């Protein structure tokens, strides 16, 4: 189906289904219960899952297929964000033009940086991309303030021209919308103790992520994808096979940059604010970590990695000592105190510690990333019972 083989079609359908059902799947715990803290089914976080999913899918097209490790991909995300906000300011508050222009602008930016950086390979390429991105970051925060809003960032305001829109009423800054439907609009469904939120912005981003995922599968299975894998495997043989690797690499780099721009465009569509820190090396490093954590070169891996890191960042950072006391209230006083003390360093402001340990744990025990872990579980299941698909799907759950 869709020009994919059965296995890929199944993967695509699973991802699509998970995206659609995420508001249920991510909210397994009743409102107000002690474990409600672990619910991730609120719009802001779900949006982040899919948007960073897009970013990581795009990064993986470059890194997974060609092995070229870009350390400056955040620059394209940032460029896309700025372009997106400008569209929301100048053109219309409808997010569609903003998202499209974000992608195109990031693509052009990637063309420029890629053209220069791809003259080198290996770590030299990584450092060139890093250098360009850091320059973009520094300039965006200082000299380019008229375009980027400097350190305060760029945002929509009441006085923006928005030439395609009718004058806004009521003196409020209009919220990004798609044909009248606001991104922040949500529909809440209450089922007994449970509360599920269906958010416009999330579903828009979700649909785009599924599309982006679909395109990525096509690229992976195409002759173009095969050529890129061959470049990764043996560049020398490629030259003596009559292939000019440079345009292949550049095309790949631009596509990957466009994915980053798309992610940037979606970010500002959800929240019309773009800051320079989005371009900083830490942001570039994050997408590298997402991809490696999930499983470099696999289709679903980057999405899982993005989901897991964002989950940790948002959920673990919000757990505090009070909550811990609640959870362990059933223990005798001494024990309760003890458990809270033990767990305390890993939560709240200490969530980075958990993340660091997670990175180390995954690399040490699951060299292929989360996908490798999923496959191991799947194998475990399939040995016990014939339908081994359960393992793979349970793995995808935390991300979607």
């Amino acid at each position, binding site marked *: 189906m869709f020009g994919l083989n059965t296995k890929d079609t199944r993967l695509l359908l699973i991802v699509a289904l998970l995206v659609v059902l995420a508001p249920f799947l991510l909210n397994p715990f009743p409102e107000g219960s002690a474990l409600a803290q672990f619910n991730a089914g609120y719009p802001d976080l779900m949006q982040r899952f899919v948007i960073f999913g897009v970013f990581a899918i795009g990064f993986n097209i470059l890194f997974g297929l060609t*092995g070229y*490790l870009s350390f400056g991909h955040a620059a394209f995300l940032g460029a896309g964000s700025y372009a997106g906000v400008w569209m929301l300011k100048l053109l219309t508050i409808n997010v569609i033009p903003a998202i499209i222009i974000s992608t195109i602008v990031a693509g052009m930016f990637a063309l420029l940086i890629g053209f*220069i950086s791809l*003259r*080198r*390979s*290996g*770590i*030299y390429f*990584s*450092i*060139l991309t*890093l*250098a*360009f991105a*850091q*320059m973009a970051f*520094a*300039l965006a*925060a*200082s*000299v380019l303030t008229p375009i980027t809003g400097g350190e305060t960032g760029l945002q929509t305001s009441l006085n923006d021209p928005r030439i395609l829109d009718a004058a806004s009423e009521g003196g409020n800054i209009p919220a990004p919308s798609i044909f009248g439907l606001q991104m922040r609009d949500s529909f809440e469904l209450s089922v007994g103790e449970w509360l599920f939120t269906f958010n416009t912005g999330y579903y828009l981003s979700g649909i785009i992520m599924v599309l982006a995922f679909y395109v990525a599968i096509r690229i992976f299975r195409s002759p173009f994808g095969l050529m890129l894998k061959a470049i990764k495997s043996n*560049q020398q043989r490629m030259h003596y096979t009559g292939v000019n690797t440079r345009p292949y690499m550049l095309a790949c780099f631009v596509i990957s940059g466009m994915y980053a721009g798309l992610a940037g465009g979606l970010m500002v569509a959800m929240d019309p604010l773009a800051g320079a820190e989005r371009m900083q*090396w*830490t942001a570039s*490093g994050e997408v*590298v*970590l997402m991809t*490696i*954590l999930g499983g*470099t070169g696999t289709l679903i891996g980057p999405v899982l990695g993005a989901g897991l890191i964002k989950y940790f960042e948002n959920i673990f950072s919000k757990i505090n000592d009070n909550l811990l006391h609640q959870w362990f209230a059933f223990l005798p006083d001494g024990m309760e105190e003890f458990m809270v003390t033990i767990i305390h*360093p890993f939560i709240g402001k*200490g969530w*980075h*510690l958990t*993340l*660091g*340990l*997670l*990175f*180390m744990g*995954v*690399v*040490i025990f699951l*060299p292929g990333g989360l996908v490798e872990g999923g496959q191991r579980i799947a194998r475990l299941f399939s040995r016990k019972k014939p339908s081994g698909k359960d393992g793979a799907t349970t793995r995808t759950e935390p991300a979607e």
Partner: protein
Amino acid sequence: MDQFILQILNGLDKGSAYALIALGLTLIFGTLGVVNFAHGALFMLGAFCTVTLSRFLSFEVDTGEVMKTAWGTENPVTEPWIYGTLGEVTGQTVIDWAVPLSILFSIPVMIGIGVLMERGLIKHFYKRPHADQILVTFGLAIVLQEIIKYYFGANQIATPAPAAFVGSFDFGSLIGFDANSIIYPYWRIIYFCFSLVLIAAVFAFLQFTTFGMVVRAGMSDRETVGLLGINIDRRFTIMFGIAAAVAGLAGVMYTPIVSPNYHMGMDFLVISFVVVVVGGMGSLGGAVLAGFILGTLESFASMQFVLERLPGINQIVIYLAAIVILLTRPRGLLGRKGVMED
């Protein structure tokens, strides 16, 4: 002209820090083939060795005496415990000299940390892809950083240089400029000299000892050295310890220049990588050279004169230089062919 000289001087101490970290990174990369993202954390740990020692020395204990205040209440008198051991005058001096003393303290600690890291973790990653090495050492860097944050807090901790070195040196009048035209803090001069000595020591060690010879041979051709039946593993461990100590010492001595905080390592890490690559992967001389060049360039770009003409250049000059160098010299300043190019 005086500004010019001042900026060269300013560039030297920053360049020294870059050079020292890059030197350690290159040592690890060249000998072990590991991309160590935790190297900035080692720099940071070194700085916190100083903090620890200075806190330890000035730890207050009860003297057992009681002081009667004017109102008749009795307060126990406390003083740093070291007064009790060394007497007040010597004790005072020792506390004042905490930073230089940390050199002695940090060498065994940092070597220990380095050896532990290599044996416990890095060792298992020699044959793994660079991506895995990056992820695991990055994870380790975060963990180390968070541990430090947990115990020392997130704020900067001021650790002054000994009183004797506080203040500045009037370099201008020495070389015939107006008095006070070129003022340079004493401690920065010391930092620069210290790093020169340290760099020279590392080079001498590699140049003149049998151990260093084997390591250098290993850097240029690992397989052959392995085939010669030389126990390269133990040497790798020691090398890692030394590289950790170099990064640590760079951190120890840097504390009076910038008060340490838990993320100072990350701040230096990225630039150090740029320095290493610009110097040429695997080249020790290149790392040191690039460290000083980029450090000096950065301080030149911060000159008022330059900033007026090229606003924002101070923020990007290192990266700009890196791009120009890498495009004109494909393997950095002194890099060899084929190292980490695929």
